[in-house]
């Protein structure tokens, strides 16, 4: 594995095959936990750790697991790793453990974890597999963070609320009151806000992709006015 391949894995995980806005896997935590930045990023990072660990754990044993029972064995390993992460959070990050609650054990059922193990770790060596899991988790974390920021600002007018739960009392002053004396916008905090926000994110990603594609197809006509009307852009 050379550097370029690692770069590809990273690009794949964070952008091209992003779990949140391209593969649309793991929607349950995405929609439920993204009500604030801190919650979203915390669960995203916990998922990234689990995905990296499961990639690293499954790649070396991939040739010893018979094909017929690979799914139960993979799920067993993922469940063990998730429970280990849950114990560690319960012991050393109690506040965050309480906030994320049921969504930590639910990482097991997040299909993206099994999907990456099945699609990548069961065919590749240990280091790239761990890195692939981590890159995919990072992509999920980015989506959760952006969606969390969007919902938190619209819904509560703050950013980073609850950061003291993640990092300790000393971080309490980091909470930004972006919109002072904001009354709050309930829709953004409730599940519909997550769906609408995710829709906007997917649309945004597709728009960026289309724009990049147009530029590639039509490098001469790069003027901002012409770009939308150029027939080549609809190829």
């Amino acid at each position, binding site marked *: 594995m050379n550097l370029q391949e690692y770069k590809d894995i990273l690009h794949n995980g964070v952008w091209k095959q992003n779990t949140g806005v391209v593969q649309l896997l793991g929607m349950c935590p995405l929609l439920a936990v993204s*009500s604030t930045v801190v919650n979203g990023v915390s669960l995203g990072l916990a998922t990234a750790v689990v995905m990296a660990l499961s990639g690293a754990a499954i790649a070396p044993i991939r040739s*010893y*697991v*018979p094909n*017929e*029972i690979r799914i*139960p*064995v993979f799920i*067993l*390993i993922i*469940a*063990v790793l998730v*429970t*280990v992460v849950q*114990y*560690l959070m*319960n*012991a*050393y990050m*109690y*506040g965050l453990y*309480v906030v994320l609650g049921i969504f930590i054990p639910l990482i097991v059922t997040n299909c993206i974890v099994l999907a990456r193990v099945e699609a990548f770790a069961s065919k590749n060596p240990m280091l790239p597999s761990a890195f692939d899991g981590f890159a995919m988790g990072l992509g999920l974390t980015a989506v959760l963070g952006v969606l969390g920021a969007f919902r938190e600002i619209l*819904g*509560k007018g703050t950013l980073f609320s609850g950061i003291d739960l993640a990092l300790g009392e000393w971080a309490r002053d980091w909470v930004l009151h972006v919109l002072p004396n904001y009354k*709050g916008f*309930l829709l953004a*905090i*409730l599940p519909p806000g997550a769906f609408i926000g995710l829709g906007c994110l997917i649309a945004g990603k597709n728009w960026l992709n289309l724009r990049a594609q147009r530029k590639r197809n039509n490098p001469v006509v790069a003027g901002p006015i012409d770009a939308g009307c150029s027939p080549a852009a609809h190829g």
Partner: protein
Amino acid sequence: MKRIARSTLQTAINLVFFAVLGTAILASVFFMTHDAIVKSEEGEKLKLIMQIVPPTLFDNDIIQDTLSVPVDPLLGNDEATLAYRARLHGEPSAVVLEAVAPDGYSGKISLILAVRANGELAGVRVVAHKETPGLGDYIDVAKSPWIRGFDGKSREVYKDADWKVKKDGGQFDYMAGATITPRAVVKAVNKALIYFGENRDRLFAASEPKKEKSK
């Protein structure tokens, strides 16, 4: 036939091996983190208790000075809970009770309340609730100081008719748009105070020497 049986057996052994390995890893992590988990849970509980019992009110190890409170309709608990006793120079000064308001807008609201020896509320906090964010969640002290309105209240000063929200002719504030939530909390706090009145002596009884020393 024989070959199929053998390969099935091998597969089964393989699965058992991974199950045993996974169990072993989990068991060891459980034992490694168990003490830290107990400690952080107790620390969190103590932090909560300190919010409603002023530190000047006790000098005992309040986390260890507990009494099991059986199920009682006045408290709304559906399993036995623990009461924590605050003592100053050996004299009972306050007791921390857990209570449940069963009739919140969306389910149960778990409360923790501290009652001084004279029957006055030292403080009330919501421990867990599922009320609508932005509407009913002002009962949470992180969202609004509403719950501090209970501080210093007692059944000496407020009679039964006063233990209602103002809309129902009582003494307690509420916010427009969400009256079901505070109604449930006020009712639960009143009932818990009745419970305290009926069980005062038993709640403050000196703790029996522990038979087994807790780890």
